[in-house]
Each structure stands twice: as C-alpha cells, then as structure tokens.
C-alpha cells in the first residue's frame, strides 16, 4: 500500500496521470468506496484490502473522456476485464496507467467472495506497475458449474427458472458490467423485441440467456453482476459455465492474455465439428 501511494504520488508529480481510480475508506459505512483521486488530494485514505471487491474498470470509459490519463488500481479479475475493454476499443491503453495489485482475495460481508476461491488470476494481465505478491497461477475448477452439470436437464431448468422468475429486470447486472456497454442494449430495443420489456419468465429467460451469451469469451469473472443482483440470481454461474465451455472448446481464458481477440470472433477453420454436438471434451 505504501509503495502504491508512493508510486501514485510520483505519477502525479511527473504529470503522468491526471486522476487515479482507486478505493477510499468510507468512515460512514466502515467500508470502502470507489473513488477518483486527483492531483492535490490526500492519498492517506486510499486503501486496498479485502473490502475492495468492486471492479473499477467500469468507470474507466467515463473517466478517460474527462481526464487525459487515468491511473487505475486493478485486482487480477479487474485486469482481465480491462483486457477486453482494450481489445474492443473501449479505452485506449495510452490513456491508462494500470496499477496491478497482487490480490489475495476479497470479501462479501466479511467472508471470502466465492469467485476468489476459484481465482486463477491474482495479478492483472495488464499492469504498468505491479505491487504485492504475484501468486502462482492455478487452473480454475468451476466446481459450482460442475455441480449443476451433474443435474438432469429438467432439474437444471427448474433451478434456473425459479431464479429467472424472480428477476426484476433492473439491469443492475448490466450496468455494473464493464463489458455491457452497447449504445442501445438489445433489451431496450423496440423492434424486434427479442426481449420484452416487462419482467416475466419468458422475457427474463431471454435476457439472462442473451446476457450470458453476449459475455461468452469476454467475461472476466469479476462477479459484480451476481454481487449487485437485488434478487440474488446466481449470474456468475451462467458466466462461468460459458467460461468453462469456451476454455474447453477453444482453449481460451478470456482476459488473461493482453490483446487477445475474443474467441467468438476468431476464425478457426480447424475447430472440431464435435463441439456442435455439445460434447464435453
């Protein structure tokens, strides 16, 4: 933390950044808040610890429109979502100073977040500066996905339909997701109405299928969608299922390799046809 503050101070002094996006202690709640630090502001209340669960990448597009150069504090998973943002021309790397922090896991309500148990990326794949330990990489297990995969189709649909039925379509999952940034979300489109506006099982199912599909090969598993869902729909489960599928079929772990093009737009003439049969191989 000390080094991080020192580096940020240095960056400000050298004029290398105009603002730094990080986490700030929030005495009112005892938690932390995303915050934009500017040149002459104190960095004393800047923190990085287990409470810093929020993915800050979502703010970057707005910030780079307002500041010439923005520093950003990144956990491993946040860094992965930054990769997608860079590849998809959302943000230009030239406007970003990535401050990667070796993440030892973050918490929700005092307990380690579920995503961290299966985390394979503790350090941001894009980092101009790295701080803290860079833990060794391991492979995610997707244990939760496998549990669902063991169920029968009927059981699975029952499981998800109960959740989908509860969805209020507040789109908090969309808004917090850095990779959901369409000018006009398909859910807001009037004609044709692939997704009807009202919250009912059919339209909600469409929404969750499309959301998951649109994130396939792009989702960095920051888990923010699931965290903010007011109805506690296990959205990460859908994302993870496709993350697992994309890795099994195309050998890609989204966001872990800088400048890697999302697998769903990659041309590969040699994909085996068996992937069309949904075989787990």
């Amino acid at each position, binding site marked *: 933390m000390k080094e991080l503050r020192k580096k940020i101070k240095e960056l400000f002094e050298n004029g290398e950044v105009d603002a730094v996006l990080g986490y700030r202690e929030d005495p009112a709640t005892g938690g932390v808040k995303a915050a934009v630090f500017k040149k002459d502001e104190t960095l004393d209340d800047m923190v990085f610890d287990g409470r810093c669960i929020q993915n800050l990448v979502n*703010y970057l597009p707005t*910030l780079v429109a307002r500041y010439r150069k923005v520093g950003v504090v990144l956990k491993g998973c946040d860094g992965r979502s930054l990769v997608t943002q860079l590849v998809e021309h959302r943000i230009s790397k030239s406007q970003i100073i990535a401050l990667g922090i070796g993440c030892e896991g973050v918490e929700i309500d005092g307990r380690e977040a579920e995503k961290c148990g299966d985390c394979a990326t503790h350090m941001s794949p894009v980092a101009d500066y790295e701080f803290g330990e860079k833990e060794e990489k391991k492979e995610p297990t997707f244990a939760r996905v496998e549990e669902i995969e063991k169920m029968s189709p009927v059981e699975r649909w029952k499981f998800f339909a109960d959740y989908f039925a509860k969805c*209020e379509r507040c*789109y908090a999952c969309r808004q917090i997701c850095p990779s959901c940034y369409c000018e006009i979300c398909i859910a807001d489109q009037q004609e044709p109405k692939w997704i009807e506006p009202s919250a009912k099982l059919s339209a909600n199912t469409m929404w969750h299928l499309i959301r998951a599909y649109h994130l396939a090969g792009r989702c960095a598993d920051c888990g923010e969608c699931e965290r903010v869902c007011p109805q506690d729909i296990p959205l990460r489960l859908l994302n993870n299922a496709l993350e697992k599928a994309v890795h099994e079929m195309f050998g890609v772990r989204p966001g872990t390799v800088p400048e890697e093009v999302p697998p769903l737009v990659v041309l590969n003439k040699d994909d085996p046809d068996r992937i069309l049969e949904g075989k787990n191989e």
Partner: protein
Amino acid sequence: MNKWHKIKKTDLQKYVSRLAEKWEVWIPRLVDGKWEFGIYDGARDLDLPESIIDVSLKNLFFPKRRAIATFDENSKWSLQPVSPERRPRIILGLHPCDAAGIEYMDKVFLQSEYKDVMYKNERERTILVGMLCNKMGDDCHCTDRGLTPDSTSSMDVAFVNEGEWYFFRSLTDKGKRIMESKYLKETDEGPTKNEWPAGKYSIASPEEFMEMYDDSIWHELSDICLTCGICTYACPTCVCFLVADEKFKGKGERVTVWDSCQLQSYSRMAGGQNTRKTPASRVRNRTLDKFAYSHLRYGRISCTGCGRCIMVCPLKRSFPQLGARLSERIREKEKERTKVPAESKEE
C-alpha cells in the same frame, strides 16, 4: 378527531383473519430475508416490522408491468382497455413514509388533467391501515424530509404498537369501515407520543437546487454512480414508465412498464438524440427531480426519506448524503458569490 381503539396484540391475527373474509388483506411478510407486502392467507403468524419494509408499496398501486389494453392480432384494430380489479382491499402495516409515497403518486396520477383511472381504481378500492414506526432503521431519514415516524398523513387508519396493545384510530370515513370489530375496544387512553430526533442532513431549498443545474458538481456526484437505476425501482415516488406492446400467439397487450431516468435508453429518441446521455446528466435529473422539480410541480419534494435507495444501491451510496453534499456546495457557492465585488457582477 376520532377516538383511539385498542386491541390486544394476541388478538390482531384474529382481527385480520376476520377482515380477510371480506377484503383482500395485504400484510408485510418476510420472503427470502426481505420484507414485502403479500396477500394475507392466515398460513403464517402475523408479524409486523417496526420500521421500514424493504419493498415499497408502489407495485400495489402502479405495478411494474401493467396491462392497460388488450388486442387481437387477427384484426386490424381491436385495442380494448382492460377492466379494472374491483375487489376491495386493505393494506395493513404500511409505514408513514409509504403513505407519503402514495400521497405523492396521487399528485402525479390524480391531480392531473388526465387522471389515471387504473391507479384511481386501485386507490379507491384500498383502505390504507398504517402502522406508525417504533424506531428508525439504519437508512431511514424521513425526519430530514418533513416527515416523522409517526406522521399519519394519507392513511385511512393509523395504529400504534405499544406494549401489549395496538392502538387503532380511523382517520377517514373509509377507515371507519374496518373499525367495527369485537376485537377493537374504544378507549380514552392513547399511545405515548414519541420524541424523534431532528434530521441529520439538512438540505437546501428547491429554488437553490434549481440554481445548481449547470454546476460542475454533477460530475463529481456521478463519478462512481453506475446509473443502474435500481434506486428508482425501489423508490416509492419514482413512477416513470414506458408504454409498449407485447404479443404472443396472436394475442397482445399494451403495457406500461416501469422505466428509469438513470438508464441511457430512457431519454434516447429514435435517431439517436439523447438529452441525458452522460451519467452526470442522469444523476442530476434524478436528484433535482426529487428535491426541486417535484416541489415546483406538486408543492412537495418527492423524497420521503425511506432510505430504500441506499438499501438497494450496489455501491451503498447514500442519497441523503448526496443531497447534503449538494446543499453544502450550494452554501459554498453562496459564500463565493457574496464575496464577489458588485461591479464585476454586471458582466
């Protein structure tokens, strides 16, 4: 002033069961750890929360999805208004901020040249039986908004939880209709009056807020807002909606669906024009609507201080704090202005 009636707490369930024979009775109940209103079916013991109910009453009067007309795709034109639900109902256990929310919705939907007859019907068929709060929740700030936990405005019947008793009092003729019961005993006693602390975050006047339209502070205030709009869904006085047609197998409905000014799609016009494209402009719209526009339109600011926006916010941002920060800025600006010498003011 009508007299207080008291009822033993142990009798309340019987009383409600009796009411439910004649009315559709809505009571708060705990679903997945959250309080929301549901139809009383006697299946569970009645349990009334002493403070804020997580889900606002808005959905009961102005549902998230509301079919206003039906049509048949097999004809060129067959749009027919839906017939309204007539069954009388009681909503029991709502709190003063809920009632204040309804009061505001009344202004939007009824005190207008075009009354919303569906809303009006929902109001007319409903007796609001409000329970005054015994305590304030963590995020409650009604005392900042000209309310107190024991305000009874807009309720048909108000009741107070005290010791072993509930004290009931009807406030309207409609309310009187449920006071005839063997369980309710007229009494000269009354509940003790609670003293409530003054508000924490004082806010500026609507006129002062209006002055802030062009201020740069909106960027600061929107810097970390996701503009997800969940606050507007939770808010008892956010009643914006969109109109859409939904179809399935030849049948169709025209529906109103809640919309939110926090979403980019809300103000997007066909062709891409958007008057509220930036997050800052959307946060500004919601803030000013709550603290200024509503007052200028209907004579009352629309924030009831229920605090639900804080409860649901993914970032746990505090709307009252935001209002306070803004008010602080207003005062700062005021100071700056008075410092400016008179001549340069002419410019």
